[in-house]
């Protein structure tokens, strides 16, 4: 099996075979929707992997120029459809920044609570689908089983299971139903031991470690160069999380919450004491670390949800009334970035004073994260391509918009 040597011009080979161009996707079981990767392969070795995007383009941004901000909220749901609440939140914050709205405290905690719950759901899918990419089916269903419970909770809150449109400009469309917090706590209690199961099935599984450790190593510099964010960036060891380092309007939401950014320090992760140790073969920035960061972020999000539940139940008063559907926007522009499960999701709004914005734009985290595929997949084996792309955990709806 030929592998690349240090000098990129020298390629070791057994038998000279023709280079093949292979289309992985858009109809392929493991390209997370409709990503099309054009692989140039020499036997099993991939010499080039070019992502082609655009198969899910739905002109969401153009539509945003014809709708009021609150009307555009459902479209943000359909961007990162696995983390609709976080998308709603990002756009709402951008519009609120433009309108300079201040929210009641209860709305703040409610948003943290809902956004972190959605982060758990999103990471569960990411984890399950990653197992699927590596050829094991069961963890996928185990992850979906837990996610279903979150979706059930969300359904009680807003009536929808995938496209929530719950968090909106000025707060949320409704308060949490009575008794919901208890259900949420019960869910968190039973999720904790299940997470250990996932670790047994995937994180510590010898085959899983062999498939992911040392594969697709993304150095910190390269991650920053490509504009990677979220778990992909933190998996490379860069200590950066918008919930701590972001704009004040966003970070003040998390004021008073105790949480540590999940990033490796001296071979250890925060809160990893009851977790499996980092395997010896793993290199910082490889697929295993990206996966592990996601798993730990689930734990982190669970902590945050618990804190949010406490603080929410202590608050009294208003949960935040949504603004009028056709509320006039002040003239000007605003850009707001939030830490979504997949990374840094930015929304930009430009207004000329009417109720419909002049421009509505989104900065997609998956788009930047996907751009590293070309670099990471060079010289790997075909089987590593799904492993690498899966570890980036992309959602095509967000990339193509």
């Amino acid at each position, binding site marked *: 099996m030929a592998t690349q040597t240090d000098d990129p011009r020298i390629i070791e080979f057994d038998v000279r075979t023709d280079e093949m161009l292979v289309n992985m996707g858009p109809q392929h079981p493991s390209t997370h929707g409709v990503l099309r990767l054009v692989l140039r392969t020499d036997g099993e070795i991939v010499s080039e992997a070019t992502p082609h995007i655009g198969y899910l383009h739905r002109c969401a941004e153009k539509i945003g120029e014809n709708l009021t901000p609150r009307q555009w909220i459902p479209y943000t749901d359909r961007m990162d459809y696995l983390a609709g609440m976080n998308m709603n939140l990002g756009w709402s914050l951008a519009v609120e920044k433009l309108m300079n709205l201040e929210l009641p405290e209860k709305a703040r905690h409610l948003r943290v609570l809902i956004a972190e719950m959605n982060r758990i759901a999103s990471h569960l899918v990411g984890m399950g689908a990653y197992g699927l990419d590596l050829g094991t089916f069961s963890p996928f*269903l185990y992850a979906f089983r837990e996610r279903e419970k979150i979706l059930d909770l969300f359904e009680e809150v807003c009536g929808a299971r995938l496209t929530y449109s719950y968090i909106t400009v000025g707060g949320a469309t409704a308060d949490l139903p009575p008794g919901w917090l208890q259900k949420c706590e019960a869910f968190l209690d039973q999720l904790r031991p299940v997470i250990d199961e996932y670790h047994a099935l995937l994180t510590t599984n010898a*085959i899983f470690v062999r498939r992911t450790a040392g594969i697709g190593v993304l150095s910190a510099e390269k991650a920053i160069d490509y504009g990677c964010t979220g778990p992909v960036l933190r998996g490379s060891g860069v200590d950066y999380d918008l919930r701590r380092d972001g704009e004040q309007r966003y970070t003040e939401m998390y004021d008073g919450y105790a949480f540590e950014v999940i990033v490796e320090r001296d071979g250890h992760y925060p809160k990893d004491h009851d977790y499996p140790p980092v395997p010896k073969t793993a290199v910082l920035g490889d697929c295993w670390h990206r996966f592990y960061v996601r798993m730990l972020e689930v734990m982190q999000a669970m902590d945050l949800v618990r804190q949010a539940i406490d603080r929410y139940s202590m608050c009294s008063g208003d949960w935040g009334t949504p603004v009028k559907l056709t509320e006039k926007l002040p003239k000007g522009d605003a850009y707001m970035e939030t830490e979504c499960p997949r990374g840094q999701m930015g929304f930009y709004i430009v207004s000329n004073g009417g109720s419909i914005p002049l421009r509505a734009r989104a900065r997609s985290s998956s788009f930047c994260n996907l751009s590293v595929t070309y670099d990471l997949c060079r010289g790997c084996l075909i*089987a590593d391509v799904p492993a690498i792309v899966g570890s980036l955990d992309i959602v095509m709806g967000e990339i193509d918009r």
Partner: protein
Amino acid sequence: MAEYLQQYLPQSLAYLTAALVHAVLILVVVALGTLIFIWLERKVSGRIQDRLGPTRVGGKFGWLQTLADGLKLITKEDLRPASADSMLFLIAPYVSLCASYVAYIALPFADGWVAIHLNVAVFFIVAVLGLEVFGVMLAGYASGSKWSLFGAMREAAQVVSYEVPLGICVVVPVLIAGTMDLVAIGQMQAGWFFNWFLFHDPFTFIVFWVYFTCATASVNRAPFDLAEAESELVAGFHTEYSGVRWSIFFMAEYSSMVVVSALAAILFFGGWNGPLPITHWLGLADSANPLAHYVANLLGLINFLGKAIAGVTFMMWVRWTLPRLRIDQVMATCLKYCTPIAAFGFAGAVIWTFLFPGGLVIPNKDWVVQEEYQLDEPQAQSAASTSAASTSPLAHADSGLHAEEHHGTD
């Protein structure tokens, strides 16, 4: 059977009918087995994944789900890509099926219940199972699809490599038994469960696990299902297949799973002999009454099938638990782990049998030895009764083996 039919039919027809009956019997085992095992796989995977699996078709447990699926597959269009090498494309699934089907011919289902009593049965089965790879390679090449070609190349590399440790593992029980005749190997493990070759010595115990790993790899089951790795190669070698031909690949896969599990059952788990010598206590096995012998064999058949099904279920359990290996890791597993361990086990078993001939802990050893000497008589009977349809030298290939063995070692 042929002799019986001859009373009513012309001789040629009688033989043909007898042969057909045998062939169809085995085909039924293969086809029915596939139906049951696909159903079982769906049930097992369902239970593993917190689902119910099929529940509707054919009553509460969805017994007939596979049949319904099979009917659906038959009605589907038999697609053939324009770039395919049409002749090879059409033939390939049947090549695969034939290979795993032929292996059943030498597989004894109970004491003496075997289509052709070969005295090199172990060797034959391993050899024939190795041919299944041809179907896969031809399918992969002939499909004219790059994914299929990848699958075929992987399969070729994998199967050829895994045949080495598999062969070494199979040789270990053969070495202990002193024969390659599966019927004789089965008979040697009669009695209590510690007579099974699995418990013969620590080395056979190790070798069994290596065997099972290699067998899983050689029948292309997860975590070694590289040839059809659906997350990488879409569906690998059968990407372009549809309908009946696709289901034939499936049949081949399941029937070879059964063959390797059954082979493991005979080589390591005493074949048709239960963990307790019940038939011996009841006097069924040694009875001169043919009916008693028949009942003993029926019990043996249940025993044997139970062991084979347990093996297959174990493979399913593994499949739904573990991620898939990468091709270079599959090869490394074979060359760096399986082959050396198998070779070590082989050497160990040689030394062990040299030091403790006849095993270490067999309290009723005399009985076993006695069995061994009695081999010739029932075998001659069974050979005569079961091999009517087979060709003559094959049928009688076995008798005299043991006499010769002693002769040779003297």
